[in-house]
């Protein structure tokens, strides 16, 4: 089924359906032409789908909704019941030591976005309160080269939130600062434009309990709003979603995915990821030459995932570790984001080419795969009457070409210069 790309001014509603409660018809507001549906049972996400091409102000009738739910979550529902049954059937576990769960730090890197940060912190505080108060986990906000006191004011109004400053502009400078300042065994990185779900911490802890050897846990990222064309386009093209099933990556190869682990895009997204802190420190933290803002505002997350997996840790994707992300609202911002994806991906390839020569052949095949993939996207976009989708694909392609054409070394020089300017020139981690 292909529906045409949404027209300007498109709005979709977002429905969070709890399946333990009776299903009801989904009303659409007077300006909504579709609705994004998140299905959960007992708060656990089981499926996500878009209902599109509707008349505004109508509703999705209950029988159609039931069919869609059964189609998208049929197997997950059965999975879920069986897993619960098997859990009960298991002999009772050995009594665990009292403080068996690892300590967690949630780190938010932010730069001049006080409103977003406030929403994000509020949701985190709610999770923390539900988990037992201030001691449940640590919250650290890293202010990255702030231009005003607005962010500091927001943080000052929140109880039990640590603020620290990273004067060097660049996301990975900030992330490394957080890594240095945090005290938890596990550090979870969140972007300031996300809102965490109530089950976020539980999901993270569950993944760690199920996979004691995990070095990294990534989570599901869903849209917080689909209020304009740019957000709808982004979500329709896949957004940040990686599905509602637990995944686990480990070892040097993965059956059925010959590009693993070079194809690091499958692992997750940087706006919702957690690492074993010591493991990441041992690997040298984030690469500060990636994610330095324009011209190379991406790829730091991919690089970190890749190095964690290559170091022999398992990487786990956990859908219950759910956050809602506010996508870019303007088309120009979205275009820049796609460009940065292309650039970040290819800068990651260029970097890994030099740092991990044994994987070069996979990187080479990854580039070919990526180009073919983009051309396929372009062909699909060529069928659309509106040029907007074509622009997005072109942006990603152009970013990719730039990423291969020496952006990474340039960015390395740039981050070194920033470091020289601000400090004595030593990176936090090398």
């Amino acid at each position, binding site marked *: 089924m292909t529906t045409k790309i949404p027209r300007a001014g498109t709005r979709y509603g977002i429905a969070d359906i709890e399946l333990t409660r009776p299903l009801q018809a989904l009303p659409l507001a007077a300006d909504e032409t579709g609705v994004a549906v998140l299905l959960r049972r007992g708060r656990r996400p089981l499926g996500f789908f878009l209902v599109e091409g509707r008349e505004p102000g109508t509703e999705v009738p209950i029988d159609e909704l039931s069919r869609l739910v059964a189609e998208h979550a049929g*197997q997950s529902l*059965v999975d879920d*019941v*069986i897993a619960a049954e098997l859990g009960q059937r298991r002999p009772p576990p050995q009594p665990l030591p009292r403080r068996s769960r690892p300590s967690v730090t949630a780190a938010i890197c932010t730069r001049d976005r006080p409103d977003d940060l406030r929403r994000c912190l509020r949701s985190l505080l709610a999770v923390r309160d539900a988990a037992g108060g201030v001691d449940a986990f640590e919250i650290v906000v890293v202010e990255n080269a702030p231009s005003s006191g607005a962010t500091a004011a927001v943080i000052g109004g929140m109880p039990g939130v640590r603020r620290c400053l990273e004067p060097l502009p660049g996301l990975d400078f900030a992330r490394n600062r957080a890594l240095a300042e945090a005290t938890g065994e596990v550090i979870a990185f969140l972007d300031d434009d996300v809102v965490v779900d109530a089950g976020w911490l539980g999901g993270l802890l569950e993944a760690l309990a199920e996979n004691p050897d995990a070095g990294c846990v990534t989570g599901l990222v869903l849209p917080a709003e689909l209020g304009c064309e740019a957000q709808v386009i982004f979500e329709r093209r896949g957004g940040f979603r990686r599905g509602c099933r*637990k995944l686990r990556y480990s070892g*040097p190869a993965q059956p059925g995915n010959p590009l693993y682990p070079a194809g690091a895009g499958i692992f997750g997204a940087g706006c919702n990821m957690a690492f074993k802190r010591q493991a990441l420190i041992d690997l040298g933290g984030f690469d500060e030459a990636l994610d330095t803002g324009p011209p190379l505002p991406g790829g730091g997350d991919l690089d970190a995932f890749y190095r964690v997996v290559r170091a022999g840790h*398992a990487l786990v994707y956990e859908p219950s570790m759910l956050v809602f992300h506010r996508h870019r609202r303007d088309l120009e911002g979205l275009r820049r984001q796609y460009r940065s994806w292309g650039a970040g991906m290819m800068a990651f390839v260029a970097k890994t080419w030099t740092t991990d020569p044994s994987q070069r052949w996979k990187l080479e095949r990854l580039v070919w795969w990526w180009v073919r993939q983009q051309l396929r996207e372009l062909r699909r976009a060529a069928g659309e009457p509106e040029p907007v989708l074509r622009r997005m694909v072109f942006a990603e392609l152009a970013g990719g070409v730039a990423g291969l054409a020496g952006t990474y070394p340039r960015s390395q020089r740039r981050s070194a210069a920033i470091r020289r300017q601000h400090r004595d020139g030593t990176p936090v981690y090398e």
Partner: protein
Amino acid sequence: MELVHLDLASGLPPEGIPGGQVECYVVFWWREVPLGDIHIRPGDRPVTPRRLAELAARAVAPAVGDRLFRSGFRQQPPERLAPRTDPPAPLDELLSARAVLERAAAGGPIAGASSPSTTVIICTRDRPAPLGRCLAAVAELRTAPDEVIVVDNAPTDDATKRVAAAAGVRYVREDRPGLSFARNTGVRASRGEVLAFTDDDATVHPHWLDQLVAGFVRDDVMSVTGLVLPASLDHAGQVVFERHMGGFNRGFRPIEYDHGWFSRTCPTGTPVWKVGAGANMALRRAAFDRVGLFDERLGAGAAGCSEDSELWYRLLAEGWTCRYQPTAVVFHHHRSDIAEVQDLARHYSRGHLAALFVQYGRYRHSGNLRRAFVAIPRHYLRRAASDRYWRRGRSPTLRAEVAGYASGLAMLGYAGPARRDEPTGGRASRRAFLRANPFEQPLTLGMFYREKMRAIHAIARPGPVRRILEVGGGQGGLTRLLYPGAVIVNADYDRAFAHRPVNEGAGSHFTCADGTWLPFRDECFDAVTLFDVLEHIPDDTRAVAEARRVLRPGGQLLLSSPNDAWRFPYYRAFRRVCPTDAEIMADWGHVRRGYALAELDRLAGTGHDAAHTFITPLTVIAHDVAFSRLPRRVRRAAGLALAPLTWAGYALHRPSALGTETAVRWTKR
């Protein structure tokens, strides 16, 4: 590789899957029912109990869903670009599902309605020790077979005979070497209605036989295959067999391979080998009666393999169904040595190629040649290129497979020259059809039957028709005359017709059945004929609905019956020499007079494509004389005298002109 069987009914092991340096293959069961499997790579070990529960749930969910819900979890036969026809399961059932494992496996699937007599056939050649192990497992079957036959193939000593004697089973000897010879000898020697085959290097699960029998869920299921699991994975060769040659595992949900699947995949060469494995299969005895025995050019000892799949090919081509029933489990002892497995791979690809040639020789389906000369070479090239591109290292069996393919090319002769008398499934020529008028004095008194045949021939589509259901065909064989090359299933209420010659010829099958309750699946016939039968059936609405149900979309429904103009005798003047309406209807078994065309359209639920009346006011005179009480000699003389009138009526009649009976065709949309 490590092999672990976990019974979910007794809970998961508290320690999960412990650490280890080798891959672990886990099969999940609920007591006797296999539900799913997973491979755990060494890098993912140890597996914590919580994650194991998660993995187990995901592995068994499809099979559990399939057993619990009417739809949403059906496994379709493998097919590229297959349309998904299975609607999702009802949401309320999905949401209210509790204790699913318990319920899914409740009572197992032991639900075979009928209990036919069974014969287990094991073919062996100089392997007394594995045979002994196999027979020991057969002796443990919960449902004992009525007969066990060991076929000793070209033995060099009497060791096999002694093993068979010790186990107390029937021993049959076949001196021509070759698995097909041995299997055919076993079939000929057997007495059961269902013949179950296993190999000497396999051991059967205690429920193997009853599950195979339970797999014959309908009359059209002629073959049931089951799940083959590795008995051990200790040796390198066994791992290579499972991983590089795909093993025998076809999953944990039943699959039905039917004629529809066959027709859709035929143009590219139907992948019949996916139906199952000869180490675990059962066939109705009737299957052999209908399509013949195993082809003796194929099979181990001859071309190499594929004698089983070639038989499935014939069954599917003739419109029957093969079912995969994963609850019937056999544990196969794969070869342990890599060299042996490579040898096997060579035989497999040679046998496969030979089977493609045989299938083409039999049916002229060009998909087989396409597969032999395009798809297989392309597959080898792609595999080699892809292994190289992804640096996977050379496949341990590819070279052997290519060698086997090359030697198989020598068997091109099996594709044979086309036989001229090959039935095409097309409509008979009008001349040949009308000449076959079975009525006495076909050109005078019996001329009315020629009229009927002309009308039926005129409305029947000329295109090839593979499989036809003839409802109430009796012993007339009209449908056989109309489509000489088709497979015809005659469903008649009267069992006495079963052994009439017309119902026992090649491609003709008789089933004792009620027209209002046809024992066939939906949409499995290309055409349904109801010639002179609807007026006999009290619940005519249901009979037509049933006929439509079993008809595939696009298929034709052919019908002839008296119409609303019918009366007997037609002219009052004949009343003195003829029985009355009521008498003749009672005599013929008619429960109603006839149908207006609009009434028939209403029954069929759609407008007709073609209609042709017959027995006109002129020709009806000879017809009424033929059924009058006049002495035979007088009737014949009258018929002769009336001939010019009858012929004139016949020649002048137009399809829509007044007649007393009508032949009609509808197409199912």
